[in-house]
């Protein structure tokens, strides 16, 4: 994206940035759908790589709304849950303006995810969003989408899921999404949220992919905070879904080959070969693998690397932890430490080969996370095992709504490089070739 393509940001008389995301004023006579009807279809290649963009200062929910405006969405189903409620409310505004063809509020998340399944199966482009307990309530449906090969985009504005009840940011729910066969992206900021949702539709509907895409972000940090987002003109949109060329036939309630409402579904296992479910799972994960080339094409890759070449240590992060890590890199530089940053954008598929290549000579890897269990640290350690002798510090971790002071990350980099014992990360979360197993065993016996 060249700077030449960016128009100047608009401001109000007080100098505050103003945005174009609000509904245009109507005189009561104008067709409320007039602007939507005038939208022009452009190719995904033009939309993502060539279309001029204008920079605006908007929230993550507004960024999601603007992505949906340009994504030619047929069906959006909402059920409110903090911090996602505003997102789907704004998508409802788009319905009023004619940008989304159908929109309603589901009974609860089980019903919402089932409705998305039905909509996608019938051949239309679907979007929903949820968060935390809503994600887990809808999980049975969500986990069945990949097996049914249902393209759709779902946004997960991550928050605490476990008791005691809280609405604070915490991305533990990503751990549940990673193994259900869907494609999972993790947005750092409002710009990612905008870009990943739109690219998600294009990737999701590729014939050799035909899978749902989950776009995760850390709730509140992204959804409710404002950031600069470079957006294409609202007068253009992606092409409609071409369901006829999907990897599975669309649902026709009465006619073969997918007369599912009357015919026994695959659950009639006594009439199937024993290994149908095995090959079915293989095929879902093969489709996840096949999405890699489209992620490269439309998103520029599964990760970004900043200052990694020749760095003494590398911080690997996803989501909001990237922003904190970037600042930690700057503070480390002031202290004379040469530290790089790898931002993982796609969690499924996971950039295994890329990490093996980037981390081959690194001595120290620090993985800060906004959850207790450290799902990203485990993914990183698994990916580079045998390809790097780096010491991997699985932390610092904050959870339950805590913020992450960048000094915590800097401390881990410093202690990791100097051999000083960490004060914030348990020895059991330190992995890799440079770890003394006796020390870890002693720690585990002592806790």
């Amino acid at each position, binding site marked *: 994206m060249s700077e030449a393509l960016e128009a100047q940001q608009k401001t109000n008389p007080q100098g505050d940035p103003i945005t174009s995301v609000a509904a245009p004023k109507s005189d009561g006579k104008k067709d409320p759908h007039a602007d939507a009807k005038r939208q022009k279809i452009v190719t995904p290649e033009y939309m993502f790589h060539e279309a001029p963009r204008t920079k605006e200062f908007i929230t993550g929910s507004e960024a999601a709304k603007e992505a949906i405006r340009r994504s030619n969405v047929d069906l959006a189903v909402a059920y409110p849950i903090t911090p996602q409620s505003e997102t789907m409310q704004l998508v409802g505004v788009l319905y009023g303006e004619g940008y989304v063809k159908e929109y309603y509020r589901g009974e609860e998340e089980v019903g919402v995810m089932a409705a998305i399944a039905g909509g996608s199966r019938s051949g239309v482009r679907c979007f929903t969003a949820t968060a935390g307990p809503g994600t887990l309530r809808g999980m049975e449906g969500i986990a069945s989408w990949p097996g049914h*090969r249902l393209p759709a985009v779902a946004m997960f504005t991550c928050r605490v899921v476990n008791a005691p009840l809280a609405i604070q940011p915490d991305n533990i729910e990503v751990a549940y999404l990673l193994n259900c066969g869907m494609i999972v992206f993790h947005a750092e900021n409002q710009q990612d949220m905008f870009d990943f949702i739109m690219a998600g539709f294009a990737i999701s509907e590729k*014939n*050799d992919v*035909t899978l749902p895409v989950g776009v995760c972000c850390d709730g509140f940090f992204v959804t409710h905070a404002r950031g600069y987002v470079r957006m294409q003109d609202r007068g253009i949109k992606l092409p409609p879904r071409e369901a006829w*060329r*999907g*990897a*599975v*036939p669309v649902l026709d309630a009465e006619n*073969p*080959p*997918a*007369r599912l409402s009357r*015919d*026994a579904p*695959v659950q*009639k296992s*006594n*009439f*199937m*070969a024993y*290994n*149908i479910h095995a*090959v*079915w799972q*293989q*095929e879902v994960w*093969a489709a996840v693998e*096949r999405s890699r080339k489209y992620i490269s094409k439309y998103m520029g890759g599964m990760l970004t690397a900043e200052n990694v070449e020749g760095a003494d240590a590398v911080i690997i992060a996803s989501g909001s932890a990237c922003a904190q890590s970037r600042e930690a890199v700057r503070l480390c530089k002031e202290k004379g430490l040469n530290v790089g940053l790898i931002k993982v954008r796609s969690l499924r598929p996971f950039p295994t080969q890329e990490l093996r290549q980037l981390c081959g000579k690194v001595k120290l890897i620090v993985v800060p996370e906004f959850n207790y269990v450290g799902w990203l640290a485990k993914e990183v350690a698994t990916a580079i095992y045998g390809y790097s002798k780096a010491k991997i510090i699985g932390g610092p971790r904050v959870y339950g709504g805590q913020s992450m002071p960048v000094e915590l990350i800097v401390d881990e980099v410093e202690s990791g490089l100097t051999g000083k014992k960490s004060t914030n990360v348990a020895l059991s979360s330190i992995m890799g070739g440079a770890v003394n197993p006796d020390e870890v065993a002693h720690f585990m016996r002592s806790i």
Partner: protein
Amino acid sequence: MPDPGQGLFYGLLEPNEEKVIEEMARKMLTSPNATIFPGPLLLWAWNDHAVEKAKATLEIAAQIPQVMIIPMPDYRPKYPKIDPEEVINPNHPNLTIWGNKIEACIFIGVHCHYANLTLKMIRAGTNCCTMAICAEQGHEDAMLTIRDSDTVKIKRVAQIFKKVREEMGIKLPDNGENVRFTGTQSKVHGGKTHTNPTTFAPSPGGTGSAAMFGHSPENMKREG
């Protein structure tokens, strides 16, 4: 997966898809009980394009002596029991391969997800050489595959099959009846053992379809 113009040749990318098509022809012309499995995208007259592709597929069949054509008309599990001579099904394709002792087969017109399931299961459980003529991006689980197969390309495949057959000195029957009926198909057609595939050329009206290969509406009703 192959790029446009390429094919997959026993697990390796082959820059020249014609080489892949020639190998398909050799396998189909020399393997016992070679079979074409047409899928719903050809068997149901969705539109004129589907009809044209079905006709072009019959042109391929017309070049292979003793070839069988067993349809995959839908993707539902067949119960109470599959008749492996009547249909192939993605939930138990190995039964059709075993039941007919098929050692080479071509899938064409099957939706990609179900083609992949079928190809994986056949590959895992049989010694059949699997081939896929795909309208999209090809199939990594087929031993031989080509991609972007529209009517023009399918007709070209038929021409290449003809060329290879003639090079190998393999003759077609004088009466043009080179397609061998399965037992079930033979019963439907009054005990005839062979047929001329071009006489089955479908029309938009649907006179040629899965039903012509023994898969009638009554059969489907019986299946529930």
